[in-house]
């Protein structure tokens, strides 16, 4: 199975900048333990590394000790809490797995040959992750999760599912717009969603620019502000007219200035 993992940091950039380890463990790979009864084929996202270039990723592994947390229910492995890159050996990556009752010193070490490590571009990763979640995800759950008083980690995992769902077109842009409009999202969450979708660039659903243009008409100044950010990320010249109209009539000085700068950046792109 594949595993959904979210980083301990919470920006959309983190969600999007990930490397995916596909661990096709063989019986010869040490150790065999009781923690992972279904360990034939599972995957892990490790870091917010943006590059999908394997050389750059190797360099990262040399230095990083990023701790990421598993939403354990999603991977069906009870007890698994942390996954940590411990270091890179010759032609391999050693990873540590810590269960509920273990300390860092007693982590199990799994030796993963590089030949079994794949680095996926962001959009592919989202698709892959989403494949494992489609039975669990629907807009009502997301709405409740984002609305309700859930803990931070759970909310972040929902946000990532949400973005993955958009990529995979399981959630329509109308639903995205509805969620952004109705859910009691914080500015950061709204920004995360818009940034994540916008960062997909060519992989984004075709309607994303229009959705962002529609957001320019929101009564909420911060939603107009955030929509501008998304359009700058996409650098979609089709949005220029809407931005110019906004810039002319905008009451908020902050939004007005952002619209003007966005026009300059998109026109120069």
């Amino acid at each position, binding site marked *: 199975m594949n595993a959904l993992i979210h980083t301990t940091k919470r*920006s959309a950039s983190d969600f999007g*900048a990930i490397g995916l380890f596909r661990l096709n463990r063989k019986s010869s790979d040490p150790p065999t333990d009781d923690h992972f009864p279904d360990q034939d084929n599972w995957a892990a996202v490790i870091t917010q590394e943006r590059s999908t270039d394997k050389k750059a990723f190797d360099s990262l592994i040399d*230095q990083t000790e990023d701790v990421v947390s598993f939403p354990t229910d999603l991977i069906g492995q009870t007890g698994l809490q942390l996954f940590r890159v411990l270091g890179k050996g010759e032609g391999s990556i050693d990873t540590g797995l810590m269960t509920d009752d273990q300390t860092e010193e007693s982590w199990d070490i799994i030796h993963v040959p590089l030949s079994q490590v794949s680095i996926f571009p962001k959009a592919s990763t989202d698709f892959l992750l989403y494949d494992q979640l489609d039975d669990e995800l629907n807009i009502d759950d997301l709405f409740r999760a984002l609305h309700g008083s859930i803990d931070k980690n759970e909310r972040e995992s929902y946000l990532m599912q949400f973005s993955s769902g958009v990529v995979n077109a399981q959630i329509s842009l109308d639903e995205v717009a509805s969620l952004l409009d109705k859910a009691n999202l914080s500015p950061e969450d709204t920004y995360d969603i818009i940034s994540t979708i916008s960062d997909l660039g060519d992989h984004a659903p075709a309607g994303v620019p229009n959705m962002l243009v529609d957001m320019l008409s929101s009564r909420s*100044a*911060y939603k107009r*502000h955030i929509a501008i*950010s998304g359009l*700058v990320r996409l650098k979609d010249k089709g949005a220029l007219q809407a931005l110019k109209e906004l810039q002319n009539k905008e009451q908020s000085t902050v939004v007005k200035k952002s619209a003007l*700068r966005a026009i300059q950046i998109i026109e120069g792109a």
Partner: protein
Amino acid sequence: MAYFLRKVDYAHQTIWEGNWGDEYPWLIMPGLPSDLLGNEAVRTDNCELSVYFINEDKSNINRVMAALNAKREFLTDTGYLLFEESLPSDIGIKVQQTDGETYDDHLNKNWHYDLVELNADAIVNLCEALVERCEIESLFKDDVIKLIGQSMSNKYLRKVSKGIRKELPRN
């Protein structure tokens, strides 16, 4: 008149304009929305807030923003609040010059200050004062990349983070 700058990311900016009618129609004026207290701009660490001195002609803003972003692991849209140097003392907040922790040594030694001994009342007072008296500026990621590039060319920055280095255009 000199200024202080407080960095605040893009998603945290519009609330400081104070036009809250559409966001919080229930809010009776004058009154502050409680979300302000959780805003990045007034999020204290050890009851202190880090701010940066800005010259009267604002000529060092770009350098300060470059330094503040050069240490991050990735770039996002960002921005800052700018307020008069006298604002903290006007509302009874103490200011201390301390060493900064950016990769710009001149900035660290000369332009970094802390607003200190902040209690909850002081933060509420600061919020009220900022809403009335601060300027808000946004910077898109594209702008920040240019600022960091300029500071590197001018040798203001002794280094940038590994993550930022990858985002800079290669010459």
